[in-house]
């Protein structure tokens, strides 16, 4: 499978990365090189093979359902580019 510039722009939109016309052209070539490389996986017979879900056979650890953390609003917003009274500030999303 290979991608065209239009697909690259659509994927960039899905990934929320702004791309210029020039970027999209360059990325099309690069992405096709990588997709061409991974194509060889199709020659592997995977009938009856389960997809891998865990590298070591183990049960997901569960913890007690108790509060162990919290009251850290100031810490949580400390690194944000824009905040007000422990809220994250973003551009207006509703008119």
């Amino acid at each position, binding site marked *: 499978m290979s991608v065209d510039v239009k697909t690259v722009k659509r994927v960039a939109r899905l990934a929320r990365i702004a791309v210029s016309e020039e970027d999209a052209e360059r990325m099309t070539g690069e992405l096709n090189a990588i997709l061409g490389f991974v194509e060889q*996986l199709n020659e592997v017979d995977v009938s009856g*093979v389960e997809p*891998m879900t865990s590298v070591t056979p183990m049960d997901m650890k569960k913890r007690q359902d108790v509060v162990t953390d919290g009251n850290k609003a100031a810490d949580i917003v400390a690194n944000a580019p824009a905040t007000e009274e422990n809220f994250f500030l973003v*551009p207006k*999303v509703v008119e």
Partner: protein
Amino acid sequence: MSDLTQLTISQARTKLRGKEITATEITEAYLAAIDRANPVLNAYVAVTGERARDMAKTSDAKLAKGEGGALEGIPLGIKDLFGTEGVHTQACSHVLDGFKPRYESTVTTNLWADGAVMLGKLNMDEFAMGSSNETSYYGPVINPWRRSRLDTVVMPTTHQGDGGFVSAGGTRTARSLDNAQLVPGGSSGGSATAVSAFLCAGATATDTGGSIRQPAAFTGTVGIKPTYGRCSRWGIVAFASSLDQAGPIARDVRDAAILLKSMASVDPKDTTSVDRPVPDYEAAIGKPIKGMKVGIPKEYRVDGMPEEIEGLWQKGIAWLKDAGAEIVDISLPHTKYALPAYYIVAPAEASSNLARYDGVRYGLRVPGKDIVDMYEKTRAAGFGREVKRRIMIGTYVLSAGYYDAYYLQAQKVRNLIKRDFENVFAAGVDVILTPATPSAAFGIADEDMAADPVKMYLNDIFTVTVNMAGLPGIAVPAGLDAKGLPLGLQLIGRPFDEETLFQTAAVIEQAAGTFQPEKWW
């Protein structure tokens, strides 16, 4: 010993406990070395001198009382991927500009609890994506090793030297260093350079496809990627969560064992951290390997592999045989599919992990006309080319209609890769010996690799299988090539059998010796 930076961790440990040296002295020696070398080698992106001095002072107080942990007073460098409270943590990306976490990663918490001293944060490929440390926002790291050539020098007879020395004449051979700058490998290039150039006693690193072992091999250092689940991933900036593992880069096998013992733990904060006690890895060093079964996989003999790598491999086989190991030929038939499967799984997981960098909660924000425009501009400006490429691949393979063809297929192939190893271990093989990399260190801004991303990816051809299967792997220096550059061998073990890796790597180290770059910086 005049230069304290030359001490291995085990040597420094003895001298610190014996009160022959202080933590402050050794810390000052490293800070001075970093001051001199870093403008040239670019291994550190942040030096935490004040904190290092404070930590050293605390260590000295403990050592004076005969107390102190396993790493008391040992100065370490920390890869920029590890969250360190109040200290520069940016995964060497522009998108995390100014990020100083309010928490400390579990691995570094363990190290400080054992008394280690933090010298600073180490350069790396952006978000650990790269094999040459050239994708860092902070610029490439320079390998302290340089190519050299052997010249025949004619010595004049009866030459009167400065000290009145009289030469007997004749010819001798001398190595002269080439000026070309080489990469240290990646993504843990800062860690590998810092350890190799004596800018820290040891370093933390992480390995998703070879990011500990390949730079270790390129710099003549020892690097181990433990079994997935051995070190907690909590507080480490995530790249590909099912592949990422932390491990140390060190100057010799014993130092790597000492560091891993402290880094590894059972952590309730990481659900993939495995509930097994951490053994004393150092105790495995020096144990005989007589009767051990060493597998040699024929699939690792790849086309176009330099003869020197093949020669190194044969030397490794001979050393282990001499030590009493039984050498058996094995087959891992799905080896060639590991790298293509990796380039689906890793970007897929990365695209989802890196979705969090949106200009809202931390790091860079580039204003836009609305929120989506802000996201898109922030991510376009914040991520470098390689990171964008991988996010794009990951987004594409996970997008509607392609999930089964790519991601599901890759995860099935991954199971087959894992099964290959399981079959070999079930047949009684204790450890597998392979080359660590298909070549020695290459030049900065290599044109072939810049033109074709897949060429760069091929660097990880021998290491990536280990991540796909979740197994432990160690890279140990085994010799120098004709140009005087270090080459490494890799040992792959059963899950959680890091002890056998240390035991066997120590045998290789004993036979091959250790390697230091000639100082030019």
